[in-house]
């Protein structure tokens, strides 16, 4: 077990775990960052999504050996106090029900908006359909993403 350095939410961490340990379990078990959720372990539900360089990535699919030296943002690091436009839009649109999948959804949406500040409904559907919400918060999520996009564009105008 080698020591591995990785950056989470701007802070450097040195962890000593097996090389094949997925980032998901480093976050949850080793670093105690439980906002990122386990849902399937095979990259098809999106609950474990975190952001790297503006890209949404599935933390259950990134082994420690590959995560070394990289820089990830989790839901805990998205904003100091829930002030990210996506988080605020999520509250305004009353998206969450059980809330379990929502961290992954918010991180996916943030990455989408970073890449495409003005996504069409089809583009939103396309990207968000890689994730599962069993409570069916999709219509409100779609509205929240539109709202966050608008706010982010207004700010950058």
């Amino acid at each position, binding site marked *: 077990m080698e020591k591995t350095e990785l950056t989470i939410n701007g802070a450097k961490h040195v962890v000593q775990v097996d090389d094949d340990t997925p980032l998901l379990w480093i976050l*949850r078990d080793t670093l105690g960052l439980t*906002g990122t959720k386990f849902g399937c372990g095979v990259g098809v539900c999106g609950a474990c999504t975190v952001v790297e360089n503006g890209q949404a990535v599935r933390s259950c699919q990134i082994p420690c050996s590959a995560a070394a030296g990289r820089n990830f943002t989790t839901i*805990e690091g998205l904003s100091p106090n829930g002030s990210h436009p996506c988080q605020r839009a999520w509250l305004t649109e009353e998206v969450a029900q059980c809330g379990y999948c929502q961290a992954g959804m918010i991180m996916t949406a943030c990455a989408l908006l970073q890449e495409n500040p003005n996504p069409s409904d089809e583009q939103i559907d396309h990207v*968000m359909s890689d994730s599962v919400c069993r409570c069916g918060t999709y219509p409100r999520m779609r509205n929240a993403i539109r709202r966050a996009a608008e706010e982010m564009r207004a700010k950058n105008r």
Partner: protein
Amino acid sequence: MITSRRNFLKTAAFGSASLVIGFDGLSLLKGADAETNLFEPSNWIRVDADGAVSLTIGKCEMGQGVRTSLAMILAEELEADWTKIRLVQAKPRPGSDLGTGGSDSIASSWRPLRQAGAAAREMLITAAATRWKVDRASCSAARGEILHPPSNRRLEYGSLVSDAAKLQVPENPPLKNATDFKIIGQRTARIDGPDIVCGKARYGIDVKIPGMLYASLERPPFAGAKVKRMHEDKARAVHGVRSIIKLPRGIAIIADNTWAAIKGRTALAVEWDDPPKDAFDSDAHWKRLEAASHETRFITRDEKAPSGTAEVTKTIEAIYQYPFYAHAPVETMNCVADVRGNRCTIWAPTQAPERLQKEVAKLLGIGPTNVDVNITLIGGGFGRRLGVDYAIEAADISRAAQAPVQLLWSRVDDMKQGHFQAASVHYLSAGFDARGMPVSWKHTKAGSFHNISPLDPKEMRDTAWYQDWSWGCYDVPYNFPAIQTAYVPVDLTVKHGPWRSVFAPSSVFARECFIDEVAQARAADPLEFRLQLLKGADVIKAGSTTVDRRRLRRVLETVRDKSAWDHRPVSENRGRGVACNAYFGRTYIAYVVDVMTDHDNNVRVERVVAAVDCGRVVNPVGVEQQMESGIIWGISSAIKGEITFRGGAAQQGTFADFAVARMRDTPAIEVHIVGSDAPLPFGMGEPPVPPIVPAIANAVFAATGMRIRRLPIRP
């Protein structure tokens, strides 16, 4: 119902300066219990000297918004400052009933919670009036303060609690008039919302206690399966694996962290023996169900045509098939158990804390009070967490490992070891007289009861019991001169249990599709035909259910008007369908659904216009959310995955082979909350589910001319 907790307070480390009022569901708590100090309510409200109001409540939060709506009810009567309300999760105690299911939380908490809030308010008013030496009638409460308008004085609740706590709790405090409600009925943000969007909401899977180990459990794929081969040495060689323990429920891999437990299980590579030839197979089960649907075992409703009714000269009939489904919540089953000697502490996302406590105590051979159950937030319940199998497993593993353990189910475990929604087959027939008027209705459901907890065989001979298990069948709301409904129980060995809206979805699917067939036979408009059949007596009784046809007509008329029903699309691949239901005679819902089919007959739900009458609305946002949620749940069961069995085991194990609706499957949804004259609030977690599937199926018929009599709808 309401008793002071002053005696209890003497022994509890609450500090002296709090006003505490306990209430226990609908059970009456006698004052004497308080005197003997036996009174330990599960639910109570507490107002602290700093003005903080806490509501300790047994209902669990699994997305239905109950923590918010219950807090609203309390805040309304207590005249509390909404921003100062905190929710605390109650624990099961002897005699408590904290289970959450049946869409009953709001209806059953409504009165006791209001009474408790009103009692506290009245005591605070008395305390203030006494201190000011004024007539208490000249005082009022608002936003966490008692006001005395004549002298323009005010006191915060916190400064009054020590005086108020010394007062007798009023037995029948006056409840507010609905016209004075300031919080109930207002769009209110979910109390847990900020925690959720910041990743701070803590679910069962997030529990971590000192010294905790992590476990994965390899279970037999079918009942009675034996291990043929496994590689214990390889599993033990996995770094971080502590032990491999054979238990009655499977083989536990115990490790220092989740990943080591997962890897250890993979390395163990258990091979189970082959299933016997007669192992459960869903195709064979379908045949049994269909054969059973032609019998008439338990008649759940039998209304003979009045004399003079014209004879049946033509009959139509159909068989409807409803499959197995998994719950598939995104948070898989999990539990932390810490067994130490004759005590056990549990942290579990559970809908059934008392059952959990009882079953774990039974396993460990200790008293239920020695099992301390902590209920966490739940990442999706849908009835699955009324089962307590995962907690029993965790307790067994903790006992064997002699350490606190978190058991986490894999997605495949969760899918394959579910408490599935049971398949059922429905036989329906309708008779017409010589003029083509419908005169008889028959609906027989062949299905299975839950087997996740033992049943009382005495009860199972009772007609009322079978009525309870066939909601949507025996309580058919339509007016036929002759009605016969029946239930035929069919043995089912695989685990099956409550699934969102329990027994209603299959029956309502069959009933609401077949009523469309009856309308078609009459060449009648399916929506107007339903309204015609809802004439006659406004209120009908069926078993223990009372159906108010006026409420059902109103939701149907609302979706007719709001959807512009008469101007529905007539293009070749588009269709519009309708369905409605009275859930247990409580919550009334109607849908109009537009679907589009492609060249390969894939169905896409484009638009849903919904109307709901759930009685008094506590939180309109919550009602809308549950409507959307139920609609999308229904889209999953209408056009996505089903569970099938071969060799005693479920064949599906992932979100790929048991598909669920995604955002791209989401239609435009319009929810209309219909003004209700029902004084009570009724549940919203389950009622939106049953009528959406038949509305989709009827829309597919309108688009393609093909009747959908088996779910899920396949191209």
